[in-house]
């Protein structure tokens, strides 16, 4: 009899006590599905993958899936990932971080991992807020927005995570939303293939906290917002600076060939 069921099921840890910690309507599950589909169609086995995460909502992802998994410290996933990759270059390393995790507390590790170009596929699930701690402002929270730590509105400018990654030297940079699942699939495939440091920013919805300041109360509304506010890289080129403001530019933003750290190091050993 043919086996039925969702392809994700064979990668879930059956001994893990579900349910997961994510709120109803959270976008992280959509990303997790996309990631597992990409791993499933990749030429590697599940023993080849190491999933490393930091601290936060999205960083809880690795515990639910049956790979080598490491739930590390806040902002430092890339440092552990670097050690694992260099100690065993055969392994495929995937890191999963949030926006606060990757570019606030982990900002220094992030730019140096990009500069060093260690072969790591880094996924940043950007929900523009600190969800787990109760909806505080993150470096990806837009200007003017009220959060629990910016009760009078955010007076700081937000980071463009992809431009940061590109400037720091990442080999591959892409952005998608969880609404654009086909694009997300493609970007994850490319990031896993890339022989260098790759970054995919995944715009996701935090219905519980971020939805409030957008005036959107449901996951459907927030995903509609993602759809309506996104423009492709090609389309964005046609827009003026003013027209591009507030838009999410999605697609491949950088794809370059640079020697990676362990290839360079291997030359020293010879």
């Amino acid at each position, binding site marked *: 009899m043919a086996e039925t069921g969702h392809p994700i099921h064979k990668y879930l840890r059956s001994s893990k006590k579900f349910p997961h910690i994510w709120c109803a309507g959270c976008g992280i599950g959509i990303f997790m599905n996309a990631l597992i589909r990409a791993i499933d169609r990749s030429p590697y086995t599940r*023993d080849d993958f190491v999933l490393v995460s930091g601290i936060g909502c999205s960083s809880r992802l690795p515990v639910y899936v049956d790979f080598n998994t490491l739930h590390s410290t806040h902002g430092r996933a890339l440092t552990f990932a*670097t050690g694992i990759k*260099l*100690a065993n270059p055969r392994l495929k390393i995937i890191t999963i971080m949030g926006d606060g995790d990757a570019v606030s507390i982990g900002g220094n590790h992030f730019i140096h991992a990009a500069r060093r170009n260690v072969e790591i596929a880094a996924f940043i699930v950007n929900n523009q807020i600190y969800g787990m701690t109760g909806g505080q402002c993150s470096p990806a929270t837009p200007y003017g927005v009220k959060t629990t730590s910016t009760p009078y509105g955010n007076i700081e400018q937000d980071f463009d995570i992809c431009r940061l990654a590109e400037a720091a030297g990442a080999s591959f940079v892409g952005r998608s939303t969880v609404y654009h699942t086909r694009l997300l699939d493609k970007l994850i495939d490319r990031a896993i293939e890339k022989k260098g440091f790759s970054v995919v920013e995944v715009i996701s919805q935090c219905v519980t906290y971020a939805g409030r300041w957008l005036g959107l109360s449901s996951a459907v509304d927030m995903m509609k917002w993602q759809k309506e506010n996104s423009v492709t890289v090609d389309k964005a080129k046609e827009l003026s600076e003013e027209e591009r403001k507030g838009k999410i530019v999605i697609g491949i933003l950088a794809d370059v060939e640079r020697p990676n750290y362990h290839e360079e190091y291997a030359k020293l050993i010879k």
Partner: protein
Amino acid sequence: MKKTRTATKATTRRLLLQGNEACVRGALMAGCRFYAGYPITPATEIMEMMARELPGVGGTFIQMEDEIASLGAVIGASLAGVKSMTATSGPGFSLMQEHIGFASITEVPCVIVDVMRAGPSTGLPTQASQGDVMQARWGTHGDHPIIVLAPSSVHEFFILTVQAFNLSERYRTPVIILVDEAVAHARESIILPEGNIGIEDRPRPTVPPEWYIPYADPGTGVPPMSAFGDGYRYHVTGLCHDVRGYPTTRPDEVGPLIQRLFSKISKDLDRLQWFDSFATDDAQLTVIAYGSVARAALRAVKQAREQGLKVGLVKLKILWPFMRQTIAAVMENTPRLLVPEMNMGQISREVKRVGRGNCEVFTLNKCDGTLISPQEILRKIEEVYP
């Protein structure tokens, strides 16, 4: 690369080595094949020599962006199955505390060298101190066990580095080597041992992957550890976890985890009494010292003996877990103790705790960046001798 080969050949000869260089020799002999670090005086020579030597033995060196990242990479490499270490000094050691706790609860073997320099904050970068004794014990948050070794000579720095790796692998715990700048930068003659020097490796699973329960106590308190990529897929987290490694808040799972972390080391306290003693049998006053201070103390004790004073010395090689048994035994013989330290009194507090007021504990504290001299210790001996 040529330099590397010449250096490796030289291991069969008597060598004049700096303390930091002896540490690297010990680490490589113990099987260390991964080093991640960040430059800091007075520990930098360890990093520089690792950068030179590791490629020649098939190991990996990386200079990270800071000390937090360094220990993160070291833990990552160890999870991938490679013996790993880092070295730093006070300010970097402060940054590493976060990941010392992580290595402790996830039970990842790793070795951290802290070459102690004087003063809080930037302090005196090129001068000796023993100010990090309590930070090494309690620096990271939460209750955790730790093993801390303290060499007093170049040769001991070599030996204790080998042993640091052995203990780290045996108990699956971070091991810290606390060494003062004077020992790290001293140059002394040393003969490196040849052949089998007794290298220990972490216990590995022998069951098939589907039977592997990563944090189940096999009876020794130390669960077998598989390397990422070996087919034993499991979860590692800094959260309190159950025997499968999954996060838990159940008191009946969290309690036993923390208890086991402590007991896996405390059950072996008898084996962890590492000290040298000198002339303690008939001593009326015993000096308790460690690091470079123990060497000044030995000279002072010899001079005191020449004067007819019955003074002994116990040199501690393990600072944590504190050697209660050893100190208690000394106290049974000797009514008075003197603890000279290059800090405001850190190990002396523990000595007093063991004494419980039944023994007189005198201290000699100095933290101005200069070493404690034999004369200073001798004067103190004369002052407090019964």
